[in-house]
């Protein structure tokens, strides 16, 4: 037997007390790890978007929220589809491609889907005033890889917004995640609001909210939703220099009652959000350092109190002060490590579950945070346990000789 045997056996004596002592540290670490994990992914996403999508323009109704570029059109208010033609008629310089959309979350039997109505590019192109640039992209079956084939500007292929050339009135294209969830395969059928669609293709995974979308013909979607000739956004691929040359201003002149933003503007609010998250996690860090240390210190104090006789007996038997320190500090170390580990697991799991829902980001576990989580939790635990341990080591052993 070694000293560790004693520590180990004692540790599991009062499990519920143990859990409550760890709660503050574990939850605190979980929140920080969660926020940080999302923040890192979000920062990377911002960076890639900045680099790649700087020229994208989104036309939204005045009242729409633009927290997230990819999800801005979901359940947004609407404006008339006729706006598309206004843009086309005005023959603005620098508009490469545009794509009207109407998006609603609707019930699909067992679960919700995000139904997005789109106009296939051939129908847009058929309009006489539409000067086609780059609509002759490489054909890959159902899905076109962007308005001008594979655009070399897109460093991360997942971020390409794909344009769809042909889409029959009763066809749907289903995002990867939605397809898995609804158990759909190419050639199957999907019934939405009593309308039977043919699944004409499953879209490749993008890692964005698009994976959860079902794309159908705009006019069919307007029909089944009962939303006349309304749309919730127009996405415009503008050429890079055109934006600075006044494309945005011209668009605002044509469409005065809309909200016109670029990805850059949206990204800057996202950067602010990230900064805010960072501040929150810093404040949280300070709070859990204090609350966690107090909570563990409190537990250890009670532990020392109820083990006074035991400690006294050990000192009488020959335990030195350093043995008493090892006894309690090892316990604190184990508690901290367990608390940090659990916090990391909970925080990472939380980020992975909530990240895609709240931020539309696919979140991956960050292994380095395990190291920091355990390190911080151990430091908290050791700090909180120091005073109780000091007290234990100073116990006068002679009191144990007195009768109880």
């Amino acid at each position, binding site marked *: 037997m070694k000293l560790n045997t004693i520590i180990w056996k004692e540790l599991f004596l009062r499990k519920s007390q143990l859990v409550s002592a760890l709660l503050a540290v574990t939850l605190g670490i979980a929140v920080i790890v969660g926020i940080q994990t999302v923040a890192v992914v979000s920062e990377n996403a911002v960076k890639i978007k900045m680099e790649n999508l700087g020229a994208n323009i989104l036309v939204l109704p005045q009242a729409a929220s633009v927290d997230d570029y990819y999800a801005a059109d979901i359940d947004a208010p609407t404006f008339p589809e006729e706006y598309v033609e206004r843009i086309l008629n005005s023959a603005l310089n620098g508009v490469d491609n545009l794509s009207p959309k109407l998006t609603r979350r609707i019930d699909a039997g067992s679960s919700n889907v995000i139904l997005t109505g789109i106009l296939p590019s051939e129908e847009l192109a058929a309009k006489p005033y539409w000067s086609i640039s780059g609509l002759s992209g490489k054909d890959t079956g159902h899905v076109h890889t962007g308005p001008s084939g594979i655009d070399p500007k897109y460093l991360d292929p997942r971020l390409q917004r794909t344009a769809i050339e042909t889409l029959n009135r009763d066809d749907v294209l289903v995002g990867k995640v939605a397809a898995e969830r609804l158990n759909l395969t190419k050639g199957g059928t999907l019934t939405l609001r009593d309308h039977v669609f043919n699944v004409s293709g499953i879209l490749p995974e993008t890692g964005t909210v698009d994976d959860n979308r079902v794309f159908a013909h705009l006019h069919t979607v307007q029909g089944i939703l009962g939303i006349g000739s309304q749309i919730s956004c127009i996405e415009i691929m503008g050429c890079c220099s055109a934006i600075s040359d006044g494309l945005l201003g011209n668009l605002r002149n044509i469409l005065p009652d809309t909200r016109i933003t670029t990805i850059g503007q949206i990204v800057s609010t996202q950067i602010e959000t990230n900064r805010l998250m960072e501040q929150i996690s810093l404040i949280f860090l300070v709070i859990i350092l204090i609350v966690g240390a107090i909570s563990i210190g409190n537990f250890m104090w009670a532990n020392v109190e109820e083990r006074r006789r*035991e400690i006294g007996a050990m*000192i009488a*038997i020959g335990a030195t002060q350093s*043995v008493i320190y090892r006894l309690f500090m090892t316990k604190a170390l184990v508690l901290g490590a367990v608390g940090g580990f659990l916090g990391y697991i909970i925080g990472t799991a939380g980020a992975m579950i909530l990240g895609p829902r709240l931020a539309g980001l696919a979140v991956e576990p960050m292994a380095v945070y395990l190291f920091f989580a355990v390190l911080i939790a151990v430091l908290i635990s050791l700090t909180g346990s120091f005073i109780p341990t000091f007290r234990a080591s100073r116990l*006068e052993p002679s009191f*144990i*000789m*007195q*009768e109880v």
Partner: protein
Amino acid sequence: MINITDVTRIYDGPRGQVKGLDRISISIEKGSFVTVTGGSGSGKTTLLVTLGGLLRPTTGSVEVDGRQLYSLKKNQLARYRNRKIGFVLQTFNLIPYLNALENVMIPMIFAPENGNGGRRPRAESLLERMGLGERSMHLPRELSIGQQQRVAIARALANDPDMILADEPTGNLDPALAMEILEILRKLNEDEGKTIIMVTHSPMAAAFGTHRLDLRNGRLI
């Protein structure tokens, strides 16, 4: 050989100062069996913990084998208690979540120079000697009080000490069990030459001693 010279111990109690021991001088030969009697509060326990290196006297000297016990540093005192002394207390003070075998091994952990390997067989043989071979895996609460006291004696013997300090070791036991414990102590004294200092209330127990000390108000009478 232990020499106590002019030892006084003053406690600062809630109602002023109390003299636990009052100018006591005693010599105890190696291998003797000393019984300490006296009324409650007469200073018996104070004398025992002073001898055991647990309580520094207010004044006076405690000399063990020619060395001043309380000039030792804290760690050296801990070492002295661990190697040279076995404590047997009225309330056993076994660690509740460790089984009998583990309780006996505790003092061995604090003497790392003896190595880890021999701990278990030695603890087993000590429990065997106390007639507890079958009970080594039992927790203290699963043992009768007589058995618990024998575990405590086995623990006191863990590092083969020169001296056993027992504070009313039979105080909680019925006469038959008390007799058993006293016989064990006598054998340790006679067969192994261990010095035994035993505090007791009972005249029957006191009769086991080769030397007797009687205390009243912290003074020898």
